[in-house]
């Protein structure tokens, strides 16, 4: 074959004249993006991504079909090329419903690959499942028990009958893995010699420590409490998260080589500056341990205690004197933990004072249900007007009766007092569970937000101090759920690792093509009820802190995991379209307009086709014609209406198809899927 000299991006290359520029570039390690090209097939030129500039040529050339001429000077990157590629991608995306990731994963703050681990659980591969989970969550047995699971809330199975029991399946897999003979052990990089100090041993701190340790850094976690775990240990009651489960997961991290130092309060036992001086990077992940105020008369009385403090006491093994009658103020999960813990501490009458109704309460509904089962009395639409004391001690609480008024900016209806309507209930203790705040003592040099939290970069977790990062409840918007803190810690670990390696880091939320669905889309999906979780009965659980749930049997867990609809695109990991879309930072919504309807049809012998994902690259059509020598598929219609046909269901066609599945194999966007019968 004739060899000729061409120049690509300033490099002189000897190329075979029979090969396209795309092939020549690829052979020389120069990637030219493309979606409709396949080495085995004739060039087609539909996607227009492979455009390059040739010196002297007015138009951009499609590299897939341009053959070299001696002395040709080619550029594969330039502003003009970038613009043309971005334009093509934006157009493709405007008519592509990729359904890249399932709503479970998209709604998980840590973007855990839920579909991936559910699949492994359904197959009984628990260690493999844990490996997938631990890409994002190093404490799955703990988190799986306590997470308010936005994944489940958004699970599309709810349009069929009920969402999957995702959170608990995670805990199930982790329990199985931890108790197995060969639990999953992550790979650890070679030591880097860099020291990272993590202040705070809660979910955020432990998560960051785990990933930083795996990256080869020397990590020390400092914590002011006697044991590690943070709010997971001192905020969550034993009956929801047994300490031994948490301890197992913490020792796993410790065994990887993370140093853990307890009973060290910043500013008291050790100064922040000292930690900084001895570290290459610092992560502040101390959480939000200061309680919010009720803001009524009598708050200073003895017998008024914060929920955080109360739970910490109990979780430290003490049983505080709370008397027989207890009022818990608040409607969140801390309030639920407090009221149910109060019952377990021997209180006979426990009232939850909440100014809105059950529907608005931020607590999990199942938590409210379980509290009611255990005998807690809910006083919705009431608000403490005054805490009445006697001899400096709480005697009663005067409640203002409320009603719901206009909706506020968050869309929730605002509670307003009903004038002159009050009620007084006799109580011995008032537990205020309204809000948590970061305590800035000891962190004087760190810049705070107007809310009093640490100001940390949204895309890099950086604080105002060089080499100091922050994540979790102590930062920005303040306290939230554990999985949020874990997600931030994931980001912080990446940012710190990049910082220590002197690599610029600026995270941007990747773009995913999303699909919206409704019940109608699942009208034909067979109904499989959600596996019932067994609980200890309310009477049995009242007097002790034993775990309330009894868990799934292995059979149940597998069955439950199999209910997964596998919403996320099966081709996501190999999808060049989404990769390019994110590389180029396109604006996928720019050219929004009519889209092809996304629906799956199972017609050709063993192929399922989704029109919404098809980008008309014609690889399937050409493969069927040129490779499989069948020519069953073809384009029908014109303009935007063009689709790939023929109707698979026609027996004359399906008979002709020899079921080689080559069409599905070449599909770059997951529009064709081989289905298992």
């Amino acid at each position, binding site marked *: 074959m004739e060899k000729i000299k061409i120049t690509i991006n300033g490099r002189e290359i000897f190329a075979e004249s029979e090969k396209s520029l795309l092939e020549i570039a690829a052979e020389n390690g120069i990637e030219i993006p493309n979606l409709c090209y396949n080495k085995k097939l004739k060039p087609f030129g539909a*996607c227009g991504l492979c455009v390059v500039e040739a010196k002297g040529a007015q138009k951009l050339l499609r590299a897939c079909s341009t053959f070299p001429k001696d002395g040709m000077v080619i550029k594969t990157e330039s502003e003009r090329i970038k613009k043309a590629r971005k*334009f*093509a991608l934006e157009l*493709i995306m405007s008519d592509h419903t990729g359904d890249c990731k399932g709503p479970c994963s998209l709604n998980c703050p840590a973007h855990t690959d839920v579909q991936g681990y559910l699949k492994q659980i359904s197959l009984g591969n628990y260690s493999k499942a844990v490996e997938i989970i631990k890409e994002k969550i190093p404490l799955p047995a703990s988190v799986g028990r306590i997470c308010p699971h936005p994944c489940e809330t958004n699970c599309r199975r709810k349009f069929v009958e009920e969402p999957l029991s995702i959170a608990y399946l995670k805990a199930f897999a982790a329990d199985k893995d931890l108790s197995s003979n060969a639990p999953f052990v992550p790979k650890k990089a070679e030591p880097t010699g860099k020291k990272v100090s993590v202040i705070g041993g809660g979910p955020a701190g432990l998560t960051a420590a785990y990933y930083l340790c795996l990256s080869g850094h020397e990590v020390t976690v400092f914590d002011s409490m006697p044991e590690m775990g943070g709010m997971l240990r001192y905020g969550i009651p034993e009956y929801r998260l047994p300490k031994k489960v948490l301890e197992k997961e913490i020792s796993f991290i410790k065994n990887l080589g993370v140093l853990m130092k307890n009973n060290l309060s910043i500013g008291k036992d050790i100064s922040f500056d000292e930690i900084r001086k001895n570290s290459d990077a610092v992560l502040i992940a101390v959480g939000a341990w200061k309680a919010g105020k009720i803001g009524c008369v009598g708050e200073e009385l003895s017998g008024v205690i914060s929920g955080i403090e109360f739970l910490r006491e109990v979780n430290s093994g003490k049983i505080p004197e709370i008397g027989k009658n207890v009022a818990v103020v608040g409607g969140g999960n801390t309030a639920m933990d407090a009221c149910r813990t109060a019952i377990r501490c021997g209180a006979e009458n426990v009232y939850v004072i909440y100014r809105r109704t059950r529907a608005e309460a931020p607590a999990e509904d199942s938590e409210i249900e379980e509290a009611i089962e255990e005998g807690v009395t809910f006083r919705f639409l009431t608000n403490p007007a005054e805490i009445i004391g006697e001899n400096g001690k709480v005697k009663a609480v005067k409640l203002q009766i409320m009603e719901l008024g206009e909706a506020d900016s968050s869309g929730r209806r605002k509670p307003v007092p009903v004038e002159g309507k009050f009620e007084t209930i006799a109580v011995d203790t008032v537990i205020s569970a309204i809000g948590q705040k970061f305590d800035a003592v000891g962190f004087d040099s760190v810049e705070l937000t107007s809310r009093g939290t640490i100001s940390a970069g949204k895309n890099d977790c950086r604080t105002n101090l060089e080499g100091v990062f922050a994540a979790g409840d102590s930062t920005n918007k303040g306290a939230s759920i554990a999985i949020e803190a874990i997600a931030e810690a994931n980001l912080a670990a990446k940012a710190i690792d990049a910082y220590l390696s002197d690599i610029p880091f600026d995270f941007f939320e990747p773009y995913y093509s999303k699909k919206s669905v409704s019940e109608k889309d699942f009208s034909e999906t067979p109904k499989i009820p959600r596996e019932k979780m067994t609980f200890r009965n309310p009477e049995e659980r009242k007097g002790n802190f034993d775990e309330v749930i009894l868990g799934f049997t292995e059979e149940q867990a597998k069955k439950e995991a199999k209910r997964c609809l596998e919403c996320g695109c099966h081709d996501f990991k190999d999808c060049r379209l989404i990769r390019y879309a994110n590389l180029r930072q396109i604006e996928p919504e720019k*050219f929004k*307009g009519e889209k092809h309807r996304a629906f799956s049809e199972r017609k050709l012998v063993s192929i399922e086709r989704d029109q919404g994902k098809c980008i008309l690259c014609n690889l399937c059509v050409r493969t069927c014609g040129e490779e499989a020598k069948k020519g069953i598929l*073809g384009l029908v219609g*014109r303009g*935007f*209406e063009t689709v790939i046909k023929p109707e698979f269901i026609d027996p004359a066609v399906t008979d002709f198809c020899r079921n080689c599945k080559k069409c599905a194999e070449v599909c770059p966007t997951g529009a064709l899927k081989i289905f298992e019968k």
Partner: protein
Amino acid sequence: MKIVIGEGSCGIAAGALKVHKAIENALGDDCKIKIGKTGCVGMCFLEPVVDIYEDKKLIRRLVKVSEKDAENIVFAAKTGDFSKIEYLEISSEDEEFLNRQTRIALRHCGTIDPTSLEEYKASGGYKAIEKVVLKMTPEEVIEEIKTSGLCGRGGAGFPTWYKWNAARQSKMEGKKYLICNADEGDPGAFMDRAIIESDPHCLIEGMLIGAYAIGASEMIVYVRAEYPLAIKRLENAIKQAEKAGILGENIFGSDFSCRMKIKAGAGAFVCGEETALIESLEGKRGMPRLKPPFPAQRGYFGEPSNINNVETFANVAWIIENGGAKFAELGTENSKGTKVFALTGKVKRSGLVEVPMGKTLREVIFEIGGGIRGGKDIKAVQLGGPSGGCIPKKLLDTVIDYKALSETGAIMGSGGMVVMDESACMVGMAKFFLDFTAAESCGKCVQCRIGTKRMQEILTKITKGEGEEGDIELLEELCEGVKEGALCGLGQTAPNPVLTTLKYFRKEYEEHIFEHRCGAKECSAMLRYEINPEKCRGCTICAKNCPAKAISGEVKKAHVIDKNLCIKCGACSKVCRFGAVEIF
């Protein structure tokens, strides 16, 4: 004396066949007076046209003839007394339509019988091919075409000699093809159809010369199936030529052999693009191929092929006969010879117009077309159909020249020339063409398939009064991207109607978007119909004709339109005899 009826498709549509029959009946068996037919002379606005010849000389041209005029025509022909048909004679003003043209491609249109080989030969036909095969080398033919400066008349305007030469050089042995693109798809364009219907032998001769030049042994005419008469007349001409030894083996006794066939296309606009045309010829879906390889290298079934448009071929025999230099005398520095236009729209005289390059648009529209009908002012002229653009009134002195027209943002195109008066909405105009290209895109490349769709959606939005700030910029971005990235000429030129209207009529877009107003009152969604109570006489005719029952009022009292019910169809305004329905 001979009575000749113009029987092109348009003449037939206007009743030419009935006129023919009526004249035949009126003649009875008088054999002194002959009756004949011819093709289309190009005066659409005067069809049916009947010509009376004496000694092969045109002595009377009768226009807008109907069956009932037959007796009078026959009487005049028999007696030589034309007084009874004076009312049918073409006015001297309308004669200007033809007098001001220079006809080369259309030289036989409307003057000879397209079904008669003899008539074609009698008018000098097939002399050029005879000369070519007997006395010229292919190189000499190409040289002559080069001297003439003839460029492709299908739209792109590529030098014909260059393409021929490339195909000639491509390979010396083996099969080559010469293909005629008669897939005339631009809305409003009918030059090619008229040529084939009126002078099919001229196409055969032009093609034969081309085939000889490049060394092709087979010729294919790709013609739209929607042109049945053209196909029929061309089939007939091919048979006649074969019989006469003009097509087939050893043409005129030379060693040049060439056959010809017709392929009817199913009507996809994109098949006018040469590589898509080849795909379609091969029996595949009409989609453009990637270039290179160009058809001259690898075309029909992989063999070197040359494709030219009908009008291009129609010039070839004339050039050989009269010399390339004579052809090159006509026109401008960059553009030689003549160009045929299908002049339509709001002009007084519409039809086929052939003028030398270098004439101004104003001359064509006002001197040949007679200016605007209905007393309004001209606003713009659209050239080149869906691939072309709108040229505003202020640029009417632009000359017909490939380069000069391109500089305005429009293109010479295949010859569509639509004249618009003040009542035309330019956004609506752009939308009309984008509706067309979006629907006709073959769907292969992303830029054209989705890009034209998005442009069409935005234009639809704007004409509905739902435009938003940023729409113009988005349109511009789409135009630029589609132009840059589309695979074939169809896509690359699809943004032109939008780009030119944005360039010259941006204010109209802004009016639509920001003031929700269509100045031309064409975008019905933005109109408001009201009855002026001063003018309304209460005749109730509007209420009776309103399909939405939106008009109410008592007899002899002013009526009112319910805005919520009004569907803005304009029926009331059309039926009102007092001009009481006002449109805002």
